């Protein structure tokens, strides 16, 4: 998603944006159709996938915009998701060399950790530690949701390789 240096980079960037848009639409079109405490977080997967393909600054902007979108649609703790998403995208972009290897399952593990961390950080930033049932949520449902996100990431990377995996040089 950075500035393309060659035609192939331009095509890769276009595919990356397309993949991001598809996940964004999926998050808001499919997410509300599913019920229960464990729902797939397509938006966080999109942010993480995009962050590892861009510079940390751009990743921070993507994270900020995505968090702002979440905050705008659920404004009870406006700004909390923006802070967490910004930090997470920035960190993911810095850590891409270490974690975002060619191994799909490592990437899935990275998404799993990112999603769980996101839930923990969001609960902390939004000051919901006093909420009843938060512990069960963070220790039971949140890991399950993170696991679902990780599995989804693996599936997406396997099925839509050209959209979500950066071109190897």
């Amino acid at each position, binding site marked *: 998603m950075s500035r393309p240096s060659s035609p192939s980079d331009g095509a890769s960037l276009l595919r990356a944006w397309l993949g991001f848009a598809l996940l*964004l*639409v999926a998050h*808001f*079109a*499919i*997410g*509300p*159709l599913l*019920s229960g405490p464990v729902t797939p977080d397509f938006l966080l997967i999109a942010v993480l996938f995009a962050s590892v393909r861009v*510079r*940390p*600054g*751009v990743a*921070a*902007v993507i*994270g*900020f915009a995505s*968090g*702002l*979108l979440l*905050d*705008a*649609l659920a*404004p009870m*703790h*406006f*700004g*909390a998701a*923006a*802070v967490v998403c*910004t*930090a997470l995208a*920035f960190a993911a*972009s810095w850590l891409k060399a270490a974690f975002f290897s060619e191994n799909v399952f490592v990437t899935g593990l990275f998404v799993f950790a990112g999603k769980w961390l996101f839930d923990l950080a969001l609960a902390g*930033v939004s000051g919901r530690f006093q909420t009843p049932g938060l512990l069960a949520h963070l220790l039971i449902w949140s890991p399950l949701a993170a696991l679902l996100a990780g599995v989804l990431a693996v599936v997406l990377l396997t099925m839509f390789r050209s959209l979500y995996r950066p071109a190897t040089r």
Partner: protein
Amino acid sequence: MSRTARSDGRLDNGIALVCVVLSLFGLIMPRSSRDRVAASLRTTVFAPVAALQSRAAAVRAAVDTRPETLRASGQVAARLLAVQGVADENATLRQLLGLSARLESGFVPADVVPSGAFDENFTLTLNAGSRSGVQRFFPVVTGAGLVGMIEQVDVARSHAITWAHPDFRVSAMSEDGTAFGIVQPHLGRGAERWLLELRGVRFRAKLDTGAVIVSSGLGATYPRGIVIGTVMAELSTPEKWARTYLVKPAVLPSAIGPVLVLLSPGTPRDLNGVWTTIASTDSAARAVAASGDSIARAAAFDELAARRAALDSVGIDSLRLDSLLRLMPGFPRRDSMPRDTVRRDTVRRDSVLRTSRVPGDER
């Protein structure tokens, strides 16, 4: 190169810092300001996404409430059917109330006991028996017309055969009294099983479609004037000397609810006009026509008497009344006039007009 990398790193850090600061600023903003910003974002930049989410939520809500909606619509349909049933029963009861008011006395109201289906053996069980004065052969009617006849009587119950029963017979006539016959079940197949036949109608009495058939009062069971049905069509039968008509029953099987059992059917009783006001209107018209005819008849007889006196005065004795009648355009021969057409209660204007034609024209 390293300087560029360091500057890029500083730029990235700066951008991230700005984003974090903005986010924290949003977090610590007053609630009203946060809501305003969120609302403005929802209605401008993120409006498509918000619309998409709303639509998905609506779909989800529709899916969630689908069983409840189906259950509710089923309940509404069931209630509608019940309401329709109550409305039908109400209409039947109102009709019966009107009928009982016109009958004034001499009947026992009864309900149909739902012990057996109407179409099993074409009988009905009524919750009125000999204790209420019900006896065998008493007619059973509703506000619409004739239902049948009491066949068996218990103390508190009675069983009636309906018009669809193979043994059912009733002496019937057209409403204007020009055609008489016997009504019996049609005994056809399928839906035609629920029709009646008017048999033995004399060949000259032709009935139009829609003519109302009522009981004639002949016999000891059914009083005169109970509506039986309406003529649907004429049936072709081997009996060339008589006509047979297909009759649609006035009381349909589905409409049999509360009924009235008419008491003392053996006593002479005329129920003309009880079921249909049309009948009474028609009888009134007949009376007017008959009175008009009687005036004309009286005038004719006066004229005839005057002519006769004149002829007598000239000594022509061979001229008889019949020959004079034959000469007069308004009077047919005595032998060409059917007996029933000169009855006071059955003479109609059209019958007089018909008989006033030249003898021989009538077929």
